[in-house]
């Protein structure tokens, strides 16, 4: 079965794809921290920050439709949080945009800023995973000092999440094929619990088989990999550009923030 992998563009070739995964990860991490720490009434500043990930997506030849589709997929979680803001903060504020101005509430402002920050940081994250192979990202994280155990677990998660999704689809399909009528909430919940249980048992089974496969190939608890990462001049140039962009914007908006 084929899945719409979030990293399906990571195997393309572009100047962004060729950058070292560690550099991209550090830039995205700092960028996310900077965007999150922006004050609550800074929509126009947020729009300036969005230029960064937007440029990366364009240079990395990642279709914007793909990026926004994935942002939409995870948006319900943030939407709940953002839309609750106008309910508890009704302090009136005047919003001005060029010659136009109108009355709104601080809650609505906060709502739009939360959504804006979410979109901008998600764009950066999608730009990272769409231009970096997951294996390179893991190697990069390992070289940055993340615990090996965490790296191994992330590797397994990436490898088996699709196998698990496949199995869940098969179970659901088998259920649908024999589902002739609605059995009522109680019975449906019971069936759902049995399906989750089946998935769980099969996952344990798979884990045992993987353990055998690892031991059969000499695994004794220590993890060995061949690291292929190397910082080149283009990585330093990217780091410098990203730092200038973030610093420049900070200096530009500093008077506004004060």
């Amino acid at each position: 079965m084929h899945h719409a992998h979030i990293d399906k563009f990571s195997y393309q070739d572009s100047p962004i794809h060729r950058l070292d995964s560690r550099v991209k990860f550090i830039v995205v991490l700092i960028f996310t921290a900077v965007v999150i720490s922006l004050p609550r009434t800074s929509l126009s500043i947020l729009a300036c920050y969005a230029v960064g990930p937007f440029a990366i997506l364009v240079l990395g030849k990642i279709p914007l439709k793909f990026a926004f589709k994935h942002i939409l997929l995870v948006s319900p979680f943030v939407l709940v949080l953002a839309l609750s803001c106008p309910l508890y903060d009704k302090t009136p504020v005047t919003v001005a945009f060029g010659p136009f101005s109108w009355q709104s509430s601080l809650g609505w402002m906060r709502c739009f800023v939360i959504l804006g920050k979410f979109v901008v940081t998600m764009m950066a994250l999608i730009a990272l995973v769409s231009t970096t192979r997951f294996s390179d990202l893991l190697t990069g994280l390992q070289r940055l000092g993340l615990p090996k155990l965490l790296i191994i677990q992330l590797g397994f998660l990436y490898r088996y999440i699709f196998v698990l999704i496949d199995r869940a689809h098969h179970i659901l399909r088998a259920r649908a094929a024999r589902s002739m009528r609605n059995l009522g909430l109680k019975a449906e919940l019971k069936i759902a619990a049995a399906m989750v249980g089946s998935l769980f048992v099969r996952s344990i089974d798979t884990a045992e088989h993987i353990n055998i496969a690892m031991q059969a190939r000499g695994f004794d608890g220590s993890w060995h990999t061949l690291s292929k990462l190397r910082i080149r001049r283009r990585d330093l140039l990217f780091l410098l550009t990203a730092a200038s962009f973030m610093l420049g914007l900070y200096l530009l908006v500093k008077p506004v923030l004060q």
Partner: protein
Amino acid sequence: MPNAIELKNFSYKYPDGTVALSEISLSVEHGQKLALIGPNGAGKSTLLLAMAGFIKGTGEVLVDGLQIKKKNLKTVRTLLGCCLENPDDQLFMPTLFDDVAFGPLNMGLEPEQVKTRVADALRTVGLAEMADKPPHHLSAGQKRAAAIATILSMTPKIITLDEPDGNLDPRNRNNLIKLLAGLPQTLIIATCNMDFAAAIADRATLLDKGRIIADGDAKKIMSDYRLMTEHGLEVPSKKSKSRL
């Protein structure tokens, strides 16, 4: 020269007390291609696990003359490569390269040697261009070939394969037959597919209810209609038999 595999009166019970293997005595010479045939639940997979030292029973198991003990398990697993039934269980690393390199790295080889072994193994199975792909991007046939490459990169003397033809279409099955038939290693293949077994094996061991029912020349055993049907199997088609 010791036999590739030697089992002497090996018996094994599952934790619930069910007898899985009973008094198995089997010798496999180096270079032989043995088909372990039998119906579902005959004990074929369990016997392969016993050969790789994954289950402990009564009796003796020797791999290339080396008795399976905790202290020489690492050596045993360098001598014997074990390919599981489901390639998704065998391919657990983020990329095919990492997966094929996993064994050689655990053997303590130098990075350059590892790279050479990975390249050789992938070339042998026809996946040289796919090294950087994650396993979930491969087709069923490619996954099976990749699983074999993970074993080949360790250059074992003996390879055990559990139902390697499962889920393969005829073209991929034929490719696999060509690949396995061309390998110089001792092969022990557990399968219920008689056409597949007939196309590769020179020796067959029929297993049912945890016991060896027949052992000998593959052509002779697999063409015995009565023996095969009695144990829920079938004789291979004429085309497959002609390859024997």
